[in-house]
């Protein structure tokens, strides 16, 4: 669950990235966050993951009130989120299996639990035959599926994907989006930042459009009518 209430963000260099943004994402929803570069999408993601704090307004993510949260609670907020990046951010010297298992070791899961859960999510994203490979041995779409498996492995309440298809061709992008939709149907909230109009329109989900630091439309019609 994400709740933005009249959120302002001004960076130290004077850039006003958000100018009064309010929206709600309820548990179990599938939401596209769209808008051109520099519109404030990345700022919203950084606020949700606790990388930056709002200048004004209230941000609540999975019951963590980011205005009042102590810094030491930040790791626990992040454990309730699965985060996926455009550039995958896999650890190059770890195998596919270890990249995913790592996220569970970090939260102190037992070895038995790790073996069971990692095998399950790798099968879910269709990489069960690639567990011993290193990221550089995989194609872009496969690397992104490792990142999805890693985001999913701790059973987070919500997955945030920042331009997950940015480096993929249209066929792979569609495939990936269908995987994310399947994960959403299993109960995980999905917030996907993208500017790929065709993909957004094809899935017909809720679309929140941002421009100039403001929400310019928020509708269930699934239509991305903004010119990027």
């Amino acid at each position, binding site marked *: 669950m994400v709740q933005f209430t009249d959120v302002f963000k001004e960076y130290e260099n004077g850039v006003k990235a958000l100018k009064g943004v309010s929206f709600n994402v309820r548990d179990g929803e599938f939401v596209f966050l769209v808008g051109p570069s520099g519109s404030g999408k990345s700022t919203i993601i950084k606020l949700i*993951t*606790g*990388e930056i704090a709002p200048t004004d307004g209230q941000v609540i993510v999975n019951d963590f009130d980011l205005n009042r949260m102590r*810094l*030491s609670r*930040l*790791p*626990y*907020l*992040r*454990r309730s989120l699965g*985060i996926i990046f455009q550039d995958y*951010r*896999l*650890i190059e*010297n770890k195998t596919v299996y270890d990249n995913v298992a*790592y*996220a569970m*070791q*970090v*939260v*102190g899961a*037992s*070895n038995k639990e790790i073996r069971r859960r990692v095998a399950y999510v790798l099968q879910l994203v269709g990489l069960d035959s690639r567990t011993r490979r290193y990221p550089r041995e995989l194609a872009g779409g496969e690397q992104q599926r490792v990142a999805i498996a*890693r985001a999913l492995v*701790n059973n987070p309440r919500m997955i945030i994907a920042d331009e997950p298809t940015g480096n993929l061709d249209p066929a792979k992008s569609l495939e990936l989006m269908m995987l994310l939709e399947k994960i959403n149907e299993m109960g995980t909230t999905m917030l996907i930042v993208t500017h790929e109009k065709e993909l957004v329109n094809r899935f017909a989900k809720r679309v929140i459009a941002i421009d100039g630091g403001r929400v310019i439309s928020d509708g269930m019609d699934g239509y991305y009518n903004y010119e990027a």
Partner: protein
Amino acid sequence: MKRNRMGYFLREGIHSIFSHGFMSFASVFVIVACLLIMGCFVLLTLNVNSVISELESENQMVAFVDERYSESDAQALRGRVQNVPNVESVVFVSQTEAMANFVQQYGDSPLLNELEPSILRHRYVIYLKDIARMAETASAVKDIEGIADVHYHVEIAKGFAAVRSVVTVVSIALVLVLFVISLFIMSNTIRLTTVARREEIAVMRMVGATNSFIRQPFLVEGLILGILGALIAFVLQWGIYSFVVSRISTDGVISFIEPIPFSAVAIPILLIFLVVSVLVGVFGSLSAIKNYLKV
């Protein structure tokens, strides 16, 4: 679960040492180099101190007993001389013994044979605990009733004391400077390995690792590299020192010096090396990753 985590930190630390092989090698090399220089100065100081102590122990003063005292009266003064502060030990030398020494020292000439022992006085040869306080000890001995005069060489005493304190101060200063330098170099070396792992640390933070969890493998790595460096430096130090000692004992000019055997200082040197390198490894890695642990 705790044991599971310890295993994880150890595995990660060791894995990281091998996967950043060159940087690990560089870190160990830096530690070994600094420890060796440090060790050489520590050993030099120990040896200079030991040589000076040797020389000092041969430096004595002589207290002459009033010539009106008989031998037994003179001997009765021993307790009072012994009780003077800073006196390590005293040896009583009677007139007769003094004459025998004198004759032995200056040869068996007919001239000496005619001398009566009574022209010499009974005396005490006094060895001191601290040679720097020779003058005050001498005057305290002189104040004892029955002691007529005290002979000593204050300049020599002062010279030894000065050499010893200069060598000690210079060595302590050098060791401290080297410690700071090696801490600095170690920290920078580990910082280079963390620059390479900036992405990895960012990923760890993104999946919800706590700061202490992120730190542990780096600590383990610093610790292992430190201990490895200490052990290598110890073995090299042993070899270098033994080589130098063997050269000294075969050199004609300075073979009078008796170096401390390495076995006598091996344990302290090993402990110093371990403590220094563990400190350097731990603080080096902590200071190196500090910057990456902000939000």
